[in-house]
Each structure stands twice: as structure tokens, then as C-alpha cells.
């Protein structure tokens, strides 16, 4: 396949707690290629968000090497944009200003104000929120907030889009809607994406590969499933597609048989 954007080699993560050292992740080996969509799935507490935070650079690994474009990940940066689970929009800024803050940071060195504003509008238009640009986060619905979060991340033209259960807090209908839109956006922008999810259908629908993590503590990658469904994918057609069912079944088998949570 194409170029590797992120390389994770023998990465482990331990945290110092009051009861001593806690190993969250061990022996993680994963490459993420340009243009692919990867899901991280596993039971809650298995460290999938920890792994995402490591890629984002929000935390640094205790052992092993993490590279982005061949360079060591030493901290967060706008080339690895994060869509946070709870949108994390700044409540005192309008939707426009929330996105503009990101655009300004990344492009203001080279571009004038008019171009920056155009970029912001473009990003909001991409998620279908042009009409809400002057609204404040508290004035829009949860789904719209998450879209602004996605617009903010995409506006930076990141090398890779990192999403931490982006649709977890939304109702099923809104979630389906946003999944469809995300697929369109990813196809249009050819962005690379890593997404943490605990939703099996979401993982199959959106991903080229599903990375399944074993139960924590000391979680590691259990299996990697390639989802070879053709794109663009249509959720209604997929419901009758045998391969979709097979993928689902494989993940479910991993989660509920091999990694059944004992007294969670």
C-alpha cells in the first residue's frame, strides 16, 4: 500500500498510580498508511483512547517508538488533528471563531485574513453548517457541535485525523447521519483517519482496517481485520451484504468470546 504516515513500534504505556505502576498498553505495533481509515475497538478501559492520545502526542509513550512522517512524535501538533469525544468547542467563541482559531494558527503565516476566513467558511460548508457559523456552541445541538469539531479538525488540513469516540454521545439517528457524512468527507478529502469506537457496526462501516485490542490492563493488539468492502459504502445495501455480516461476526467473536470481560 501507500506511504506510512504513522509508525508505532513496540510501544508500551505505564502510568504511576497510588498502588504502584499500572501498565495500560504493551507491545503495540501498528502502521497507518496514507488515506486509510482505521478503527480501534475494544472493551471499555482497554486503552484504546490511550493509544489515540499517544498518536496525538497528548501523552508520550513509556517505551517504544512512535513516528509521524518518519519523525518522532514529541508532542501534539496541528498535523495530527483531534476530534474530541465531547466536542471541546470553546463556549465563548462562535462556531466560525472556533474553526477560525485553528485555521489562523496553521495558515496565518502564509495567508491573509480574507483567505483564512474563506478557509473557515469552506470547512463549515464541508460539514453542512454554513447557516450556523455565527451561533454559539450552546445554541446548537450535540450533533452540530460534533460537526463543528470535525470542521475545526479538517480545516487544519491535517496529515491524519484522530477521532476519540466522536459520535459516542449522540443518538442513533444523528450518529448514522454523521457517519455517512464523514464517509463522504473522507472520500472527498482523501484524509487519513484513526477512530476510537466501541460500536461494531461503526467500525466495519467506516474502516479499511479494524484494530482489536485485548482487555486491559496491559492491553495489546489482539487481531487486525481488513474490511474489503467496496467504497462508497451504503449502509442500507451493506445490511444485505454477506461480507459485512462476516466482518461484524469476526469482531463480535473477538469481543464477546475471546475477550469476554470477566466481572467487568
Amino acid at each position: 500500500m501507500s506511504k506510512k504516515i504513522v509508525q508505532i513500534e513496540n510501544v508500551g504505556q505505564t502510568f504511576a498510580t497510588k498502588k504502584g505502576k499500572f501498565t495500560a498498553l504493551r507491545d503495540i505495533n501498528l502502521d497507518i498508511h496514507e488515506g486509510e481509515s482505521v478503527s480501534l475497538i475494544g472493551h471499555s478501559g482497554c486503552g484504546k483512547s490511550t493509544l489515540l492520545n499517544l498518536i496525538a502526542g497528548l501523552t508520550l509513550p513509556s517505551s517504544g517508538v512512535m513516528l509521524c512522517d518518519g519523525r518522532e512524535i514529541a508532542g501534539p501538533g496541528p498535523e495530527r488533528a483531534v476530534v474530541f469525544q465531547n466536542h471541546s468547542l470553546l463556549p465563548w467563541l462562535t462556531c466560525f471563531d472556533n474553526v477560525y482559531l485553528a485555521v489562523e494558527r496553521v495558515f496565518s503565516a502564509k495567508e491573509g485574513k480574507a483567505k483564512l476566513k474563506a478557509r473557515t467558511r469552506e470547512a463549515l460548508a464541508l460539514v453542512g453548517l454554513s447557516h450556523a457559523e455565527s451561533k454559539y456552541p450552546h445554541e446548537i445541538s450535540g450533533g452540530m457541535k460534533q460537526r463543528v469539531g470535525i470542521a475545526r479538525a479538517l480545516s487544519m488540513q491535517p496529515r491524519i485525523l484522530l477521532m476519540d469516540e466522536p459520535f459516542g454521545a449522540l443518538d442513533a439517528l444523528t450518529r448514522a447521519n454523521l457517519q455517512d457524512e464523514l464517509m463522504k468527507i473522507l472520500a472527498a478529502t482523501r484524509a487519513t483517519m484513526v477512530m476510537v469506537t466501541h460500536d461494531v457496526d461503526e467500525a466495519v462501516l467506516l474502516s479499511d482496517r479494524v484494530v482489536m485490542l485485548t482487555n486491559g490492563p496491559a492491553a495489546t493488539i489482539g487481531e487486525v481485520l481488513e474490511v474489503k468492502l467496496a467504497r462508497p459504502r451504503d449502509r442500507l445495501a451493506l445490511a444485505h451484504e454477506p461480507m459485512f455480516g462476516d466482518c461484524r461476526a469476526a469482531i463480535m467473536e473477538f469481543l464477546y468470546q475471546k475477550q469476554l470481560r470477566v466481572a467487568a
Partner: protein
Amino acid sequence: MSAAAMTNQAGDAGKVTDAARPVGAKPAAAGTPVMTAAPAPTGSGGGERLLAALQAVLRAVMPPVAGLALLIGLWHLATLNGGGIPSPAKTWDAAVVLFSDPFYREGPNDQGIGWNVLASLQRVGIGFSIAALVGIPAGFLLGRFAILSRMLNPIISLLRPVSPLAWLPIGLLVFQRADPAATWTIFICSIWPMVLNTAQGVTRVPQDYLNVARVLKLSEWKVFTRILFPAVLPYMLTGIRLSIGTAWLVIVAAEMLTGGVGIGFWVWDEWNNLKVEHIIIAIFVIGTVGLALEQALMLLARRFNYEGR
């Protein structure tokens, strides 16, 4: 700023229609659906709405007015048999005379009540402003650097419960004059809430917002102006409100001790003149000014409260 003000107005308008809806909905339930399908703004509908608005105002105004009437009634009963406390009527008469010329000046010790209130407000304003200039940045530093907070918190905890009046002699000693000494006590009493609330606000800035700043790699200045300051502002305003309240409490006592022009000294002066009705008037004036300060700051705080909306 103006955009938020406009959205607030829109919100208020929404409330009004919500309040009016049940009234309009009644005939809909009783009448035919055809009637309700054409909501022509008839005269009776407008009148009904006006009546509803009037009722709402009455419902809001009646209880406090009744409470005030009760207070004055009890006061009147208590003073029926004479005694040192003047009756409400006598106090009212004195108030009419007093407020007919609040800004007269006959020498440094005989000035209108307006001048006295303004003099007190000025002292509070100066002492409070200096306290804000010192206390808010100090609060940011304490909240940002744990080592500073561990260093200074014991000292603050020790000094905070001390009545600011205990600091008055120090002020007199240092400044050698009464007026700056009174301002100094105001400074001391208003600085603690601002330091502590600002510091608390800084430590409570949600990690998510700071993560956004980290991912965007915002400059320190941007982090401060776009994230830290707006996030801390509600806490800061709480500190400011507590400070102003305390300052207004303390100024009366401080002025009683230092003399000069000011509402506190005026109360003491009227006590020496045995004009008890003036003291009662002063109590109402002090209360009204305190209430106004509090309400103004509450209004300001509501304007900057993002989470609650």
C-alpha cells in the same frame, strides 16, 4: 459582544411567547380546530396578552412589596409608644428634607448625604481597583503554578479571617493620614476573594480546552486570551462580587473610625447629634447602594456565564 446581547434578547422574546401560549391555547382546546387554524391577531387577543403580562408583573412585584409593608407596619407598631426609635412617618419626613438637597456643602464636616455616599464609593472604588490590579494577576499566578500556591496558601488562610479593621492602625502608621488608611482597609478586605476565586478558576479550566490548545499549539498569548481568560472570567467575577460586597460592609466601619466625609462617618456624626431618623435613613441608603452594586455585578456575571446557557 453585541451578537450575544442580541441572542439574549431573542431568548427573552421566546420566554414571553411561551408565557403567552397557555392563554392562547385555552380557546383552542375548547373551540373548533378551524378557529385555531387562523390565528388572527384580534383586539381581544391583544388585550388578553396585556392582561397576562400585567398579571405576571403583579405576581413578581406583590410579594416584595408585601414584605416591605410588613416591615414598615411592625416598625410603626414598635414605635407607637414613643421611645428613642423614630416612627416611619417621622423618618419619611426627615428623608424628604434630606433628599431635597443631597449635595449641599457647608464646611468639611457638614455636607449633604449625596457627597457622603460618593466619598464612600470613591474610597471603595480606589481600594477595590488596586486590589483587583494586584489580586487578579496574583490569582492567575497562584492557579498556574502549584508551587506558588503551596507557598502562599497558608499565609492567605491565616490572614483572610482577620477583620480588615485590624489592619487600620497599620494603614494609619504607614500613610500617616486617615483617608488612605481607610482605602488601605478596603484594599485588604477585597483582595482575598479575588485572589482565591481567580486561582480556583485557573485550576478548574477544563482539561479539554487545554488539550485543544495543545493540539493547535497555540502561543502562550493566544492560550491566555482565547482560553484561560474567558474560562476564568466567571470565577473572577464571583471574586469581584464578593469583594465589592465586603468592601461596602467594611467602609462604614472604617469611616466611623477615621472620620472625614463618608457615609460611615455621617452615621456616627448623626449619632452624636442624636438624629436617629438620619441613622435609619443611612441604613436604607447603605443597603440600597450595596444592593445596586451587587445587582450590577450579577448582571455582568450572567453576561459572561457560558456554561449555564
